Structures are given as structure tokens and as C-alpha cells.
């Protein structure tokens, strides 16, 4: 690793100018060895992260296709495009893919895998073999899953409620269940791996309160994965057994109880929603700090709120069953706890906002995504209050209000966090910069398209339009047309990054170790990082986020000088007819 790389940080925002001062390091984790074997049998957490990156992005696009069909179909009230049966299979496929195969693994498996060891100053995760195994489980599960939902299809919704799923549904439910089951185990392994790594493999001097908030959030996520997922696993097993052998565990006709199934399902699936959003919160904490050049405000509160969310999140699942015959007293308790879970989330939102105060804010692409996250997550979460209130949920449940609620959090929140992470660490992962202005454009487009798509659904929901409807009453058409229009914008906004990120792989200017001049451990090594992440095991002497606007100004001055030197250097080399650029690209 070239040391001057660290001493001459590029002026943020315009790495393209100084990047020539950097070279892609001669050997790094991507070019250490080649061939499919070196990937499919790799134990390196960074390479496994890449494997996940590809598979998960693919899943997202599949889910998106389904969403596209859903929205197209809903342009007209009476389902011109698809037969109801097909429509049902579509939103089931959409929900199953997006939840089990995209969002739950997304940030932990990709960026968690890549960053947790680096942020800890470790060489790898505690159990590299488990890590690879978890990817294979995921692949197996997701392939079985998408196979099932595309050929033959499933018409149960992602919630698999009995007795519909066990007796009356047509699609190949059993196979899909196997898929989700396997994916679940992959998720357990990831979480287990993280917990052990975070406890046991921190670099010397890296005390708990010197950990980046990313790690705290990831830790909370892992706890949910480890303690919650097994219950989903057993529920799916039971459903499978019932579907195949007609055991009647949940079948009222045989003395079974469908509501037990709902309890078991939501005991996992509510905490699971925090598996989806906590990692995005992790990303936001990092990005906000970096681009407002300020330590995250109230570090400890943000850190512990993650744990609070993880724990309280386990006590509220009954709020999905207010309109069943659940005991009113139970409903009351669940409602109460659901309101409580808002508090730690609020603490996060407010502390992030406070971090902006007296910062020196740069609206880079990742930052735009993160600000978007905060706003949309707040709206999604706050509408969660309407649902946490039993009396008002009775009317709203199973309407589009719910659909809007969770898309605000899962798309506007979690998925935006995923995009933010993608852009923030892209230089670290690939060593290249993407096109900043395209990035910003995409981020803004996403924000606009998103609100156009999902805000009308709040209204439709309050107006009483039920969800999972292939055909609907004509009075809702106007709102649905708005929604579909928005969705097409969304699609473009998601396709754009896909294109320019790929493009940047070859053409993008070289980023250098630390283009954002960030302070996290992962930025203290070359990008792409070497095989064991660090040439020397770092010893940590201070907390994260040692940013400060003042220091920034100083560094800027330095950077300007650097740039001057570089331009001088350039011209000199030009004169010598020495083509630095080609040399440097050869390194890739």
C-alpha cells in the first residue's frame, strides 16, 4: 500500500482530478487469484460479500419485475393484464423474493460481510467456512424459491397463513417453504458469525465504545437473526409437514388452530422487519457522520437504541393480529409495546438530525440517500403508530395503508440504505469512483418516484381499498394510476445506478484508499483492500468519527496544494511522454 495515499487525501467530491496520484495496489483481494474456483471456494469474507452482492441484486431485480407487473395490472380496476390467479402469484412472488431473498440478507450479507472484519481490524470473520456455507444455503434456498414462484407459482402471500397455505392454495407452496427455510438458515449462520466476530476479534484497543455504530447495529441485527429465525424455521417445517402429510397442526377441521400459526409466524416476522431496517440505520450512522464531518451526535444513545429496538421488537408481534380473534387484553398489551418501540427509533432519528448541526455538509450521493432514508423512515414509522393503535388498526389492517406503511420503511428506508451503502463503499470495494452527478440524479429521482408511488396508497388505504386485490372498486382508480406512474419512475431510478456502477468498474477514475476522507478503520487500508485487509494489524487509540469541520478546512488547503503538485506532476510526465494512466489501470 502506498503510504502517500493516506497522507494526500483527495479533495472530496472531485477525486477524478487527483486520482492519478493513486494506483490500484498491485495485489488485492480481487486479483489475488483468478478462475471460478477461486471464487466459489473462497473463504475470504470480501469475496463472499461480492458473491452475495451479485445474487442479492439479481433477486431485487426479479422482485422488481414482479412489482412492475403488479403496478401495471393495477392501472385498471378490473385486471385487464393478468388473471386474478396470476396476480395473486405475482404479489406472493414479489413479497417472498423481496423479503426472504432480498431485504433480509441484503445489507448484513453484503456490506456486513465486507465491512465487519475490516471495521474490527480483523483478518476475517470468526468462521469463514460457515460464511461460505451460508452463501451456498442462500443460493440453494433462493434458487428453489424463485423456481417455485416462477414455475407454477405460489398464491399464499408471503405470510403463508393456514389453512389457506396448507390445503386450499394451488401453487407449489411446499417447495417455496423449503426455499425460505434454507434462506433462513443462511441468515442464522451470518448472524452467529457476526456475534462471535464482534465479541472475539476486535483489534487491540478497540473497546466497545470505540466501535463504529455500524457494528453496534449489526450486532443487534445478528441477535434477532439468531434468536428469531429458528422459530420461523420450525413454523415452516410444520406448514410443510401439514401440507404434505395433512397432519392438521393448524387445521381447525382437525382440531388445529390457525391463530397459533400466526403467532409463531409473527414471532419471527416482526423482529425480522428490524433485521431489515437496523442494518440500514447502521449505514446511515456512518454516512451522516462522514459527510457532515461531525461525530455522530449522542453516540451512546444511538448505540443502545439499536439494542433496545432488537429487544422490544420481540415483544410486539401480536399487532399483526388485532383483527383476528386474539384476546382483546393481549391486543392491548401488544399495542402498548408497539408504541414503545417507537421511542428508540425516534432517538436515532433525532440524533442523526442533530449530527447535521454545525457540520460541514456535503450532499454526495450516499448522503442524499441517507437524508432520504431519515425522512421516509420517519413517515413510514409514524404511520406505524396508526397501526399500533388497536382501534385505528381495525379499519386499516389489510388495506393499502399497510402496503404504504411498510414500503415507506422497506423501500424508502431499508432499500435506500442499501443504495447508500452501495455508493459509499463502492470505491472501497472496487477501487473505482462512479459518476457523481449521475448518482445524485438517481437518488433524487428515487425520492420523487417513491413518494409518487406510495403516498397515494396511504389515501387508498384509509379509503378502504383492501390489499392483495387483483380487481378493485373503480373509485380507487385515480390513486392507483398515480401509484403506477410513480413506479415507472422508480424503476428507472433503480436501473440507473445499475448501469453507471457497472460502467465505473472499468472506466471509473481510481478512488484511492480514502476518497471520502473518512475515519473508519476500513478506510485506513488500500482499496481494493489486500487479502488480509490490513498489512499491519491496527491498534486503535481513539473512538470512531474523529471528524471536525475545522480540520476539514485545513485538509482542504493541503488538498489544494496536492492538486497543484499533481497537475504539475502530470504535465511533467506528459512532457516526458510517460502515460501514467495506462500503467495505473493495468493494476486492476
Amino acid at each position, binding site marked *: 500500500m502506498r503510504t502517500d495515499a493516506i497522507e494526500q487525501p483527495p479533495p472530496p467530491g472531485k477525486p477524478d482530478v487527483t486520482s492519478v496520484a493513486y494506483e490500484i495496489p498491485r495485489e488485492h483481494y480481487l486479483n489475488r487469484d483468478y478462475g471460478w474456483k477461486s471464487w466459489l471456494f473462497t473463504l475470504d469474507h470480501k469475496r463472499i460479500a461480492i458473491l452475495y452482492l451479485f445474487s442479492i441484486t439479481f433477486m431485487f431485480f426479479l422482485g422488481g419485475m414482479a412489482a412492475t407487473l403488479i403496478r401495471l395490472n393495477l392501472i385498471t380496476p378490473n385486471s385487464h393484464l393478468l388473471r386474478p390467479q396470476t396476480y395473486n402469484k405475482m404479489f406472493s412472488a414479489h413479497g417472498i423474493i423481496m423479503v426472504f431473498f432480498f431485504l433480509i440478507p441484503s445489507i448484513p450479507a453484503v456490506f456486513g460481510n465486507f465491512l465487519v472484519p475490516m471495521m474490527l481490524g480483523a483478518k476475517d470473520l470468526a468462521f469463514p467456512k460457515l460464511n461460505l456455507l451460508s452463501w451456498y444455503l442462500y443460493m440453494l434456498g433462493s434458487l428453489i424459491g424463485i423456481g417455485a414462484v416462477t414455475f407454477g407459482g405460489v398464491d399464499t402471500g408471503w405470510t403463508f397463513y393456514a389453512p389457506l397455505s396448507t390445503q386450499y392454495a394451488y401453487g407449489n407452496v411446499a417447495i417455496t417453504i423449503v426455499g425460505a427455510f434454507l434462506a433462513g438458515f443462511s441468515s442464522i449462520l451470518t448472524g452467529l458469525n457476526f456475534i462471535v466476530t464482534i465479541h472475539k476479534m476486535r483489534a487491540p484497543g478497540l473497546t466497545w465504545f470505540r466501535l463504529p455504530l455500524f457494528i453496534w447495529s449489526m450486532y443487534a441485527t445478528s441477535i434477532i437473526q439468531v434468536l428469531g429465525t429458528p422459530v420461523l424455521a420450525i413454523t415452516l417445517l410444520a406448514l410443510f409437514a401439514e401440507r404434505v402429510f395433512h397432519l392438521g397442526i393448524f387445521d381447525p377441521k382437525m382440531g388445529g388452530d390457525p391463530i397459533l400459526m400466526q403467532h409463531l409466524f409473527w414471532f419471527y416476522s416482526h423482529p425480522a422487519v428490524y433485521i431489515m431496517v437496523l442494518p440500514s440505520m447502521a449505514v446511515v450512522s456512518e454516512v451522516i457522520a462522514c459527510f457532515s464531518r461531525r461525530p455522530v451526535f449522542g453516540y451512546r444513545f444511538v448505540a443502545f437504541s439499536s439494542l433496545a429496538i432488537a429487544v422490544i421488537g420481540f415483544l410486539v408481534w401480536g399487532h399483526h393480529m388485532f383483527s383476528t*380473534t386474539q384476546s382483546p387484553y393481549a391486543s392491548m398489551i401488544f399495542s402498548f409495546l408497539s408504541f414503545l418501540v417507537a421511542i428508540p427509533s425516534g432517538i436515532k432519528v433525532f440524533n442523526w438530525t442533530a449530527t447535521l448541526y454545525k457540520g460541514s455538509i456535503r450532499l454526495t450521493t450516499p448522503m442524499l440517500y441517507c437524508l432520504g432514508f431519515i425522512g421516509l423512515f420517519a413517515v413510514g414509522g409514524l404511520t406505524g403508530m396508526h397501526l399500533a393503535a388497536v382501534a385505528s388498526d381495525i379499519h386499516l389492517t389489510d388495506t393499502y395503508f399497510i402496503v404504504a406503511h411498510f414500503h415507506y420503511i422497506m423501500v424508502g428506508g431499508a432499500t435506500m440504505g442499501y443504495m447508500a451503502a452501495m455508493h459509499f463503499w463502492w470505491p472501497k470495494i472496487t477501487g473505482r469512483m462512479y459518476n457523481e452527478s449521475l448518482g445524485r440524479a438517481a437518488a433524487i429521482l428515487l425520492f420523487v418516484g417513491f413518494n409518487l408511488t406510495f403516498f397515494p396508497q396511504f389515501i387508498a388505504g384509509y379509503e378502504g381499498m383492501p390489499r392483495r386485490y387483483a380487481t378493485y372498486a373503480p373509485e380507487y382508480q385515480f390513486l392507483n394510476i398515480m401509484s403506477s406512474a410513480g413506479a415507472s419512475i422508480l424503476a428507472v431510478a433503480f436501473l440507473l445506478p445499475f448501469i453507471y456502477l457497472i460502467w465505473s468498474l472499468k472506466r471509473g477514475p481510481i478512488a484511492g484508499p480514502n476518497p471520502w476522507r473518512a475515519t473508519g478503520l476500513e478506510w485506513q487500508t488500500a482499496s481494493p483492500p489486500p487479502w488480509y485487509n490490513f498489512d499491519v494489524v491496527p491498534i486503535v487509540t481513539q473512538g470512531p468519527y474523529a471528524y471536525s469541520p475545522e480540520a476539514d478546512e485545513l485538509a482542504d488547503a493541503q488538498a489544494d496544494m496536492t492538486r497543484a503538485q499533481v497537475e504539475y506532476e502530470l504535465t511533467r510526465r506528459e512532457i516526458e511522454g510517460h502515460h501514467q494512466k495506462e500503467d495505473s489501470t493495468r493494476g486492476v
Partner: protein
Amino acid sequence: MFNLIPFLLEEASENAGRYDALFFGITAITGVFAVIVAVAIIALTLRYRRGQKVDRSNAPLYGLTIEIIWTAVPLVAVMGMFVWSTTLFFSNKKEPANALQVYVVGKQWMWKIQHPEGRWEMNELHIPLNQPIKLTMTSEDVIHSFFIPAFRLKQDVFPGQYSTMWFKPTKAGTYNLFCAEFCGTNHSGMVGTVTVMPPADYQRWLSTGTYQPSIAAQGEKLFRQFGCSGCHGAAASVRAPLLDGIYGNPVAVQIPRGDVPLERVPATTLTADDRYIHDSILLPEREIAAGFKPIMPTYKDRLNEEQILQIIAYLKSLGRSNGTSNGGASTDKTSEMSPSDYKARVGFTPANLPTITKNLKRNSPAANNAPAASLPGGGTPGKVTPNRNTPTTTPGNRGTNR
């Protein structure tokens, strides 16, 4: 912004008004926070953009006071919302005594609705204005959900158990009826209308259109056809309780536990509402009429939900008996039971006999159509929820005990 007229959904029931107050109340409270966050982010971002010449010196890294504030304020806010919604929720639980009973059966993918007088309709519900209506609902197959947006009410409908909801329509007109729980292929086709009409029109409507012998009559047929009368009839040889007047009245029952011999199980009182009778037919072992041998066979596979509804209607139509029966059910018998009486019949004197008789006495006046205790609106416990004895009496009986 929701209040824009075109977006306002009709408020056609007593509940709707209170609901909207709550809904927009919550929207307002949460809206405040949303605005605060949004404004703060935008303002700060603009003010402290890089390059802005502003004072960035000694910025705080944390502040205990501010943290406490933005923990406490939302806490107060959410607790406020919680209390508001919960009180509304429970205040809606009990339906008025004069509620009109209508029976609903959901099947893939239609609603079958039966009025007590025997008028039945498909995917349509006609009800008189300003008259409290109580729906007793069940499903033949999967889970459905009975949803009337204009009333702001929804209740899931489960196979094999009853759920009920009640409302008081306050505005004549025709409103959407949806099935809100995904129930398979034609879920989105399981829709209909609710028509609220002035009582006079309602009477006229009742007397027209597709008729069936009144539900009670059908029930009576079944009652004979399936041999109920063979045991429950006054002349029956088998010793089974007379069912006259059981409906809506307290009954003394024993709730068996594991291998504890029946004689050792103390009796308790329940109200013979729809759920109780439904379970007595499908799961006779669950609650045994005190003093009888549990020899009644289950009718789980022989009677479908619709038929059971008809039988219940029949039992309801029987009214009060004048106590010539040995019916463990009929109020006046049990309530006057002295310990010796009781022992003579049951073979033991339950520890909680006083409580039982007290309960029975207290409830015997409530001998009208409306069950003394049954549960509109929210969740009615279904078959899966045996009526365990009141916490006050022998608490031992509850739970997974033997």
C-alpha cells in the same frame, strides 16, 4: 391534507365518527413530528452546507438534556395515543342488548347472510337504520375478513369458530363490503354491498324476495334429523339436559382436566352464548353440563357451520321452560339448587357452589335474545378458547393442567 373533501370517506356508523377523530388525531400528532424532522433536516442542511461561512466552532457531541427531551416528549405522545385508542377499542366491545342478530357464513368466495326471520342473501346485507346490528360470523373454509369501510369496521372470520362484530348504522345508503383477508384465487371478487334502509323499508324488504323457512324451523328439522331430540327431548330416555331456554342463560358446567375424575372437577358457570352451544355440539368434551355424563357424541364431521347456526337459532327460539326438566342448563333449576340437591344430582358438592348459585342468580334475569355476555366488535374467542372458569373462582382450572 387528508381532510380534503374528495378524500373523506363516508361516516355511516356510530363508530365511524369516533374512529375518524382518532385517526386524524394520530395523524395530527405524528404529523407534527414528521414536520419537525423534515424542517430540521432541510434547514440544517442548507445552513451548514460545505462552503457556507457559518460558525461551526465548539459543536456539541452529546447533550443529556436534549436526549431526555426527545425521549420523553415522544413517550408522552405515544402514551396519549395508546390511551385514546385503547379506550375507544374497549368502549366498542359490548353491543347493546337490543342488537339485532344476523348470521354470516363466508366461503370461497362469497358471503352468505341470514336474517333471523329466514330471509337470506348473497354478498348483500340489508339492515334497518339506527338499529344496532350484531353479526355472528364463521367460515366454511379459509380465513376471510368482513370489512365495511364506511363503518370503519373489520373482523376476521375463521373456520370452526365464531367471531362477532356489531355496529349501529346512522346513515341510509349503500356501501362497499369487502373481504379483507386474502383467501385465494377470487379474493378480490368476494365483495358486496351493505344497504342501510329506514326500518319501514326494511320490513317491506324482509317480506319480499328469496325466502327460506325461518332459520329456527330449519334448525328444528335438523334437531330431529340428527337425533338431538333423541337425547334432549323431554321424553328422552337418555339423561341429557333439556335445552329449552338454555340460550343466553348461565349454565353450570364442569371443565374436565386430564385424568381428574369428573366428580372431582368443581363446577363453574358460563353463559350459553353462540360459542358455548357451538362448542357443545362440536366439542362436547370441552364443557360438560354439570351433573351429566359426557356421553354426547361430537358432531364435528356431521354438521356444517351453517346447519349449526340454524340449530342455535332453533334452541334460541325455544324460550324458557317451566322447569319440568332435569336440564342442567335451565336457569331456574340450577339457581335454586341447594347443596344437597346438587349432591344428589352431581354426586358431590363443589367447593364453589355459592359462587355458582350467585352467578346464576345474578344472570338469570338476562333471559332475552341477547346473550348476557358475548363479544361484538373485537375478537370473540372461538372454539380454541374453552371458557375457563372466572379467575375469581377456582383458578386452578386454567392452563395446561391435568
